[in-house]
């Protein structure tokens, strides 16, 4: 494929707002996860909360006001991202910049709260409930597009935990075919009771902090995050998307193929698209949710393609599993790793599962790296791998 330049990117996670907070935490080995409850939840476990989401959106956007769009607003305000898009708008025109945003649950917290406030006979949801601008999967994409003053093509990708990795693929295809000249891609997913109680019902939520690749891993810790990248044809930019791979497991709705065949197909495609060999990859940011089955299946797939030659780690021990935002968070952390020459360790991992054969990184490594693969896999067997590089 034709590589795409990463003109600008930004991340807001439980580690803080903006890229510098992410890098500081990666260097210090300090997690953003806290053992605290979310909203009215009474489940044990750790969560990754983004601070400062109590301020309502500006008045003209009050119809869009919900935790998810506040998170988008906060994310857009970091690292000069909005200004970078404004500059791109003056270069290309707002109609020539596409917007592709991944989300899993969008503003469904608003729906949960509206159900608590339902009343009357027959029952009705309260008048403040704005389905189109909050609950609907497209609402966050709509909000981002309006906030950035863009009028090009757009859609919300919602493929569970691969959503905001797949936005890179959609943007690449749209730019290659000339349907836009540049694109804003991103992911925004906020904490809600649906995912906390839902993963708990599936017995995938850890009572302890999440411990990816650990022999005694118990499941995930959920986090929230917003991240965005501005993509343009590659020419003068330092960082690049070199390849992507997308596949399906064709196996089960919520359990991975134990052989990891779909994951393997996605990683192979990402390398093939960039005409790159496994030995050219310096670091793999694993999906690594810390559930027993997911981590094992991913290890199978990674070992089959890379053997034990390439350092691998999941960064979910820092941010938690940010679900629909996981793709952009880990793309952003992959880019941070490339820029800083830092291979982050598998945080919170005490004893690496002896069944694992790939090279799980126990201590951070500081050295120049050139090429990073980032994996994102989701429910429904939806897989996406992204290959990033610096010159």
């Amino acid at each position, binding site marked *: 494929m034709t590589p795409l330049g990463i003109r600008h990117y930004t991340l807001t996670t439980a580690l803080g707002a903006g890229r510098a907070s992410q890098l500081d935490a990666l260097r210090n080995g300090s997690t953003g996860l806290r053992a605290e409850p979310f909203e009215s939840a009474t489940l044990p476990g750790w969560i990754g909360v983004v601070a400062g989401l109590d301020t309502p959106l500006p008045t003209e956007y009050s119809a869009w006001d919900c935790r998810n769009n506040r998170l988008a607003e906060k994310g857009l305000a970091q690292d000069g991202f909005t200004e970078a898009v404004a500059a791109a708008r003056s270069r290309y025109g707002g*109609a020539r910049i596409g917007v592709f945003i991944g989300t*899993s649950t969008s503003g*469904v917290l608003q*729906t*949960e709260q*509206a*159900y608590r406030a339902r009343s009357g006979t*027959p*029952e*009705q*949801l309260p008048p403040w409930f704005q*389905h*189109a601008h909050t*609950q*609907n*999967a*497209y609402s966050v*994409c*709509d909000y981002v*597009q309006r906030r950035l003053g*863009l*009028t*090009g*093509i*757009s*859609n*919300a*990708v*919602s*493929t*569970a935990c691969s959503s905001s990795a*797949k936005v890179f*693929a*959609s943007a*690449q*295809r*749209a730019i*290659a*075919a000339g*349907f836009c000249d540049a694109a804003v891609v991103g992911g925004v997913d906020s904490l809600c*009771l*649906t995912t906390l*109680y*839902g*993963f*708990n*019902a*599936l017995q995938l939520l850890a009572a302890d902090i999440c411990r990816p690749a650990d022999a005694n891993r118990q499941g995930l810790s959920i986090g929230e995050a917003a991240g965005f990248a501005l993509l343009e044809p590659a020419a003068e930019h330092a960082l690049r998307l070199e390849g992507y791979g*997308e596949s*399906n497991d*064709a196996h089960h*709705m*919520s359990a991975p193929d134990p052989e990891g*065949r*779909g994951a393997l197909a996605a990683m192979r495609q990402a390398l093939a698209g960039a005409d790159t060999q496994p030995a050219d990859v310096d670091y793999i940011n694993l999906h690594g949710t810390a559930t027993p089955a997911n981590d094992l299946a991913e290890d199978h797939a990674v070992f089959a393609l890379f053997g034990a030659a390439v350092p691998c780690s999941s960064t979910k021990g820092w941010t938690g599993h940010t679900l629909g935002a996981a793709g952009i968070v880990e793309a952003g952390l992959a880019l941070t790793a490339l820029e800083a020459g830092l291979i982050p360790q598998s945080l919170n991992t005490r004893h690496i599962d002896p069944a694992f054969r790939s090279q799980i990184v126990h201590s951070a490594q500081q050295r120049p790296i050139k090429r990073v693969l980032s994996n994102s896999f*989701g*429910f*429904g*067997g*939806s897989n996406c791998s992204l290959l990033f590089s610096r010159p």
Partner: protein
Amino acid sequence: MIELFIQALGIAAPGLADWPQARAVLAGHTAWANAELPPYQPALLPPNERRRVTPSVKQAFRAAEDAVSRYTGAVDQLAAVFASSDGDLGIIHRISLALTETARAVSPTDFHNSVHNAAAGYWSIATGSRLPSTTISAYDDSFAAGLLEAALLATASGHDTLLVAYDVPGPPLLQAARPFIGAASVAVILSPSSGPQTLARLRLSLGVGAVSTMPDLALDALRLGNPALRALPLLRALALGDPAAIGFALPSSQGLRVEIAPP
């Protein structure tokens, strides 16, 4: 501008139970009569998965299975794009309701079926296809956004690509917030190259143009009553078989223009 070839079509909507029936109605050979869709069980799903699927997934399968019934290629070699404004409002209702109760007992099956890509996941299980698929939403314009996404995926991947647009009404509490006229789905199989099966050639481009409507008022009400049925002007032009240019709204100032020509 990109050029694609339509290999097969499928539909399931009130009074338009499948493509052969819809083609006769849309070409003006028979009158449209409102009729509920009969019950349906996805034929391609293994029995244990069939029991778990929701009305929304069944609705997606209905049009998809209608389209692949006239497709001569291998179904496990289809890439796919699923486009739905709202996915499964029934599940959102049940989970939101469960969360208002003390026990907060969310059904694990409901939760894994709650993802917007549930239909895509079941389709991959049903067909054994590991090829790329994605699932998008663009609110009322989900069909046109999905058509563009599918066309771009077919062009980039070289695979025949199945587009399925679907939405189903929610329970009363959510139907008030997001009213749909009825359950509906539309499926289109696009190919990057023409073949003996090809029904028509499509050229897609962006442009500000008039949004095409249906001359029949009842059918235009259907078009506006479910995001999947925004496809009707395109399907009508294909049923008539004449060259045409169809305008779709996209969620921005630009629309999508689709020119139809013989293969």
